[in-house]
């Protein structure tokens, strides 16, 4: 079976400076994969390079076998590779339901709009309660739910989530983790960026460690990773001593 996402030799950045270089990763057709590592080491840039929201990039990206590394962002969305960005405020002066309906923008998404809306409102009952509220009035957790809901309205064949639980309470984190597990159980492959190792471990089958703009390690679920090793990855070997 074709992998959902195959990335090879992907580099990119801003102005003359590469933030990430020579990234290679794969996400299987119904797999959950994590990207973790310290802040400011290029995890978000990798997602931006894949969704073509980063202007300067090179390398190959295949989505279900189709090359998308030269495609424009809207073509990538139309193909079903959906990027849910970090701390997305979505559209502050739009109502929740209006936002969700609007998010079904591409023809494929529009065709499935009604059923996807039901799905999102069932997955996040809080959004259903607040469907006439403006997005700017939502709390941090609700905004994150809206952001993921918007991603689902795009009729994803794969989701890329950038720190979906950033700044949330443990209770809300659990709620979102469950929602993400539900989405993935529906057969949608997921690539999730996280800093919280415990959280990402509970969520994914496999993960990549991103350090200084490169993938330096791949960790399977069965590989036991102990605390010291993670500390070593984050802070260098000296930290474990």
């Amino acid at each position, binding site marked *: 079976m074709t992998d959902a996402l195959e990335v090879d030799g992907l580099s990119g950045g801003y102005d003359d400076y590469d933030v990430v270089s020579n990234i290679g990763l794969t996400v299987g057709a119904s797999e959950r994969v994590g990207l973790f590592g310290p802040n400011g080491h290029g995890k978000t840039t990798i997602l931006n390079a894949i*969704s073509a*929201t980063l*202007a300067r990039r090179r390398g190959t990206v295949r989505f279900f076998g189709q090359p998308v590394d030269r495609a*424009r*962002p*809207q073509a990538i*969305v*139309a193909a079903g590779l*959906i*990027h*849910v*960005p970090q701390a*997305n*405020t*979505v*559209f*502050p*002066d*739009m109502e929740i339901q*209006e936002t969700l*309906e*609007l*998010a079904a*923008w*591409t023809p494929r*998404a529009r065709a499935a709009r009604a059923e996807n809306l039901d799905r999102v409102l069932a997955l996040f009952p809080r959004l259903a309660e607040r469907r006439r509220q403006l997005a700017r009035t939502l709390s941090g957790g609700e905004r994150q739910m809206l952001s993921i809901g*918007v991603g689902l*309205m*795009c009729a994803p064949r794969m989701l890329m989530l950038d720190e979906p639980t950033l700044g949330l309470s443990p209770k809300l984190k659990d709620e979102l983790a469950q929602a993400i597990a539900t989405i993935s159980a529906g057969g949608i492959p997921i690539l999730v960026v996280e800093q919280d190792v415990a959280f990402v471990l509970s969520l994914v089958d496999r993960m990549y460690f991103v350090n200084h703009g490169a993938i330096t390690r791949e960790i399977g679920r069965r590989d036991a990773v102990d605390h010291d090793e993670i500390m070593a990855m984050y802070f260098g070997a000296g930290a474990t001593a």
Partner: protein
Amino acid sequence: MTLDALATVLVSGLVMGSVYALMASGLSLVWSTLGIFNFAHGALMTLGAYLAWTLAGSGVLGLPPWIAMLVAVALVAAVGVLLERLLIRPFYGHRAMLLVTVMTTLAATVFLSKGIQLVWGPRLKELPALAPGNVSILGTSISAQEALIVGVAPIVLGALWAFLRFSSTGRGIRAVGQNPQAAQLIGIDVPRLFAIAFALAAALAALTGILIGSVRLVTPSLGDEPLIKALIIVIFGGLGSMAGTIWAAYLIGLAEALLVFTIGIYWAPSTLFLLLILVLVLRPQGLMGKVVR
């Protein structure tokens, strides 16, 4: 103030307010979608009026005034698409986009108004009236043309509101104005919607220019003063708020009529400015603007 005088003030305030609302709405649309001020808005008004003149009875082609107006509006919308492509699109994402586009749209103003002088010459033109004769509203007699403006403005503004609120293109325009990055990630072709918003604003400018031109005479500087007024109205109403712009337009129209009536035509403009400055000192975000932008 007698009741008759009050009616006169009200009617002339409504006429002015309607014109202001129409011309400022396009400027407001461009600001809240693209995040720039379009200084060519006034020149587009002038262009619309001249094109309508050429197309209509008194001009070369002799079309009926209504048809001439619609064709002129469509042509100016096309010019809007061209301006967006040439003068604004190259600078999307530029650090100083706001300032660069001040320059480019001002340059467009110079080109358009000099071009208009070159093509149509400096002589005044008279547009045929869309509605001839006079009518009496609240005991005040105004030209049917002015009455038409008072009637057309709410219809056009209502249509604009409904388009932005309910149509999917209109919703998309609001989305790219509020968060272009998020809009891109749901598959919206952001530059295309910028172009549509800009063309729509140009069409509104042309419509206003034609309506003004059919009340006054058409001159190469027809749009100059309205541009300044429209800028003030958009700022006074609150940047980024279309409703604020429209309220501000009618409020300023009525205030101006009242001032002209009470203290006379010489002191009215400066007193009006003083009032606006005072309001903005007390409420810097304007009538309905957001505090942070």
